[in-house]
């Protein structure tokens, strides 16, 4: 053991904002690297995750699409209409997957080690979001390719794809943060899967994912209008089937505010994950 190995290192006088941001970026990068290394060791996971939504799109677009009344959905292209629904569905499922390693760390005890380190309370969740967003980008890319092959025309062109990606990112932040908060809050993984299994499907079906809001029964319409997924889907659908519309920005604004609120809840839940932790 070298002397210098243990020489005192006075912790840097921090407090300057740039130092704090640089520390935070280093934490998020280090944690995200872990998730990507793990993904690299489980490449089949990547293959199935990317292929699954594309298969859903084919199934919905060419199968269920035939049974849909064109008058109701306002376009003759059900594949294009439902693409945002599939993206939202995929991102919600991804949020559950995003929170799982946090729960394993909690149950395995490694979360304690992480919490004993001088890291920001948001960096773990944000690292999962970074990972999940990269994965979602691959999924969206595969969906867009399949949609183009199926003859969907994106009214807003390449900009539509950019808006879809941005929306998927915001939605991914919201669900990753919420499900992470849930993972920290539940006593064990049984509860986590019971709750996520209970809410994910209704969350998707109580939105405009497969049917326009106006076409839903009155009570479902109310629920759908309160559902953040509806805004995400609206922001993605308009550029595909209609073109530019100011409503896109409104929808993105609502979704963005919701995502930040979810992140705040997730970070605070991390703090008090057993209700009596030190902040």
């Amino acid at each position: 053991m070298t002397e210098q190995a243990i020489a005192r290192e006075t912790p840097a006088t921090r407090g300057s904002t740039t130092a704090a941001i640089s520390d935070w970026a280093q934490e998020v990068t280090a944690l995200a690297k872990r998730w990507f290394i793990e993904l690299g060791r489980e490449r089949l996971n990547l293959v199935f995750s990317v292929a699954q939504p594309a298969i859903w799109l084919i199934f919905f677009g060419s199968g269920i699409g035939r049974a849909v009344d064109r008058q109701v959905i306002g376009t003759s292209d059900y594949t294009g209409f439902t693409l945002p629904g599939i993206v939202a569905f995929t991102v919600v499922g991804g949020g559950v997957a995003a929170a799982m390693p946090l729960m394993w760390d909690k149950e395995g005890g490694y979360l304690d080690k992480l919490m004993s380190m001088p890291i920001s309370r948001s960096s773990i969740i944000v690292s999962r979001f970074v990972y999940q967003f990269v994965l979602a980008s691959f999924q969206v890319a595969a969906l867009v390719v399949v949609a183009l092959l199926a003859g969907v025309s994106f009214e807003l062109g390449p900009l539509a794809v950019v808006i879809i990606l941005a929306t998927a990112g915001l939605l991914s932040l919201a669900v990753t943060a919420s499900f992470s908060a849930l993972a920290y809050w539940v006593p064990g993984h049984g509860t986590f899967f019971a709750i996520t299994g209970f809410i994910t499907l209704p969350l998707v079906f109580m939105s405009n994912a497969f049917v326009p809001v106006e076409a839903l029964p009155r009570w479902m319409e109310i629920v759908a209008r309160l559902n953040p997924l509806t805004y995400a889907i609206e922001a993605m659908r308009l550029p595909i089937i209609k073109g530019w519309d100011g409503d896109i920005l409104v929808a993105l604004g609502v979704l963005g505010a919701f995502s930040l609120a979810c992140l705040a809840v997730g970070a605070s839940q991390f703090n008090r994950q057993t209700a009596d932790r030190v902040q």
Partner: protein
Amino acid sequence: MTAMIEARSLVRTFGSTRAVDDLDLQVESGEIFGLLGPNGAGKTTTIRILATLLAPSGGTARVCGFDVMTHPQEIRRRIGYVMQKISPTRNLLTGRQCIEMEASLYHVPRREVRARAEELLGLVGLLPHADRLFSQYSGGMQKRLDLACGLLHRPQLLILDEPSLGLDVQSRHKVWDYIHDLRRQGVTILLATNYLDEADRLCDRLTIIDRGRVVVTGTPSDLKRAVGADVIQVTTAEPAPLAAAIAGQPWLQRHAVSEAGELHAHVTDAAAALPALMGIAAASSIPLETVTYTRPTLDDVFLLHTGRELREEEVTA
């Protein structure tokens, strides 16, 4: 000396369980301090409070001069924490990837991460295995990796929860060697253990805790001395002349010849008295057959203060 840890009337309850019950603790800078107690005594709970993971239900605790409740982040920058449990969730990473990640989480400057990780892997003898998966490490290697991870940011205080739990004898001795080396470099060490020999061999001072309460605090030798004297047993053909020869020596407290003809010499310190006794026997030409001695153990200390045996608790807990 300044206090590295100062806990006053610390309490922590879980429902109706008082895991830590009015505990006082003072650890000075530069010492190896032990928390010895049976399973369930409250060692881990105490450590989790000091490592800023758990809020106390009552009392105060200062670590490295900072209050655990008001300045946890300052404490986290200054302490290394090695948990009792080895978490399996890093199974898909190599040892190197694990330690480099933790180096970044401790904000080791980016350019130095690789070198710092190698330095510490070398320190615990894992450099040859750096690129093997964590899941392929033996329990001893995983523990040593965790120990290395606790040193990444050159902490002032290293907190070790049962550092040699479940290790084979060889790995245990390696871990003890590292701990001694660290103390020589000036790192203060707090370690929890329920192994008597570990507490005895490693700690400068220790506190025995039981049911969340301090039983007694002191150096291992003081604690044992308080229990009573060492006993030297000598078998010889001529016990009476030997007894006469050693009578009045300053190291002798009292002596007796047993029915079996064994001389029992009660002495303050057997290690010092043995050569003296054997010297006298040789000078008086008294041949000795066997010489053995027994010293009080920390188990006797625990027994004296609680009326129960530490070892039995370990088995049943």
